[in-house]
């Protein structure tokens, strides 16, 4: 299987281990990644927060590039990139004034046919049975809180992915590799996202609530699918008072561990909160 790959800016910076682990895991699952040529930033929160045209315009550039490369599917691991591109695709499809203007800037290209998928959908495509069959490690003692955040599932009318309020797609993957997903309350609550820099106090506060709820429900690891969520939950733990430290893993890292990939190769040494407590629980299958 071959899919287009749009790593997005964070994956060469703060989300470096996300990129590393994705490449390693997909190699094991026989998924070939074709990186989008000379891709550009999707515009992220800053673009749509300040200018609608800019946000759709920036994301569209990548969609058109994918079309040029004849990619049927474009995998965007970052939830924010995924969301922005899905939204941009939706707007282009609707043929709004903005869409017309953007099409004029791009030699009349109007529809972006490429299908944008997130990491959960990619794993679903690779096949849960396939992943299950390739699982080498015993993850029995691991209780995982799957954290979806905002942008994977919302707005449901556009993402059309899982359930906006009680999603379970990530839990299915966790179960497939033999770990135990926990039922908790904050899986779609916001971590504060892009306010990390301008309003650190908000992000610390919101992320703390998420971590506290996960711990309270017995989780010993939080699984994420977004570099922004990861940096807020992982990096900001140090600023939280009275909060138990809990490893925050990317979904790809977690699946990587299950498939028997070395944690360093997955980039897990790059975390700010130690991942040791979880690594101890990863046992070799008997």
């Amino acid at each position: 299987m071959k899919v287009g790959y749009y790593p997005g800016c964070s994956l060469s910076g703060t989300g470096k281990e996300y990129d590393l682990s994705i490449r390693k895991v997909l190699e094991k699952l026989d998924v070939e990644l074709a990186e989008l040529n000379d891709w550009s930033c999707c515009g992220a929160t800053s673009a749509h927060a300040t200018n609608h045209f800019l946000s759709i315009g920036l994301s569209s550039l990548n969609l058109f590039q994918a079309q040029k490369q004849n990619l049927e599917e474009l995998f965007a691991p970052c939830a924010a990139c995924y969301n922005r591109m899905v939204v941009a695709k939706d707007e282009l499809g609707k043929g709004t004034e903005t869409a017309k203007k953007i099409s004029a800037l791009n030699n009349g290209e109007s529809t972006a046919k490429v299908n944008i998928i997130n990491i959960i959908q990619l794993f679903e495509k690779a096949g849960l049975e396939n992943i299950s069959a390739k699982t080498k490690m015993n993850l029995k003692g691991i209780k995982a809180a799957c954290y979806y955040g905002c942008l994977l599932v919302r707005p449901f009318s556009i993402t059309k992915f899982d359930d906006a309020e009680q999603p379970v797609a990530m839990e299915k993957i966790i179960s497939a590799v033999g770990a135990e997903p926990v039922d908790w309350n904050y899986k779609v609550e916001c971590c504060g996202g892009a306010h990390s820099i301008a309003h650190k106090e908000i992000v610390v506060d919101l992320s703390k609530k998420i971590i506290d709820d996960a711990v309270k429900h017995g989780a010993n690891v939080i699984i994420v699918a977004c570099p922004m969520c990861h940096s807020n939950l992982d990096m900001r733990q140090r600023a939280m008072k009275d909060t138990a430290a809990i490893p925050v893993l990317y979904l790809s890292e977690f699946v990587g561990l299950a498939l028997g990939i070395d944690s360093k190769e997955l980039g897990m040494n790059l975390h700010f909160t130690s991942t040791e407590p979880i690594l101890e629980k990863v046992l070799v299958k008997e």
Partner: protein
Amino acid sequence: MHAHNTHVETLAGKIEELTSQSVMQCYQCGKCSAGCPVRNYMEDSPNQVIRYVQLGFDDEALHSSTPWLCASCLTCSSRCPQNFDIAKFMDAVREVALEMEIDVKEKDVKKFHEAFLNQIKKNGKAFEFGMVREYKLKTLNLFQDVELFPEMLLKGKLSLLPHKKKDIKHIKKVFDEIK
């Protein structure tokens, strides 16, 4: 003729033009405010900002800090019983406020977005270090997070040089369009 042309000079009209939805759709149930994760940091609740626009209190809406505190998490939009996209509405309020050069309360948020977009404009990709540098110079908020930087650098999570997109002309075109 579309109805919005008649009141295009009002904030409600501009927002309708930008978002293709009428602010009158909102029936003020408050579900958006009830579920908003950053509600506790806001003076005006999200539904109050919509109310300002509905009633023509445009200054109140444009000067409110609420749109700038919005984390764009879309919880409101996905739960709105009237299918009103509140997050998109907030995007539009910010856009109009910037266009009108309103002296917004949440200067740091505004500067963060400017710094972020400047990096994209220059490099085609977000350049975290450059963005943070620019943001710090703009806000003079020099010491926030300094404790994290060395470790980030060490772990290779913060590159000192930007990753650049090779062909920048399309990015330029998009930015030129909004001048």
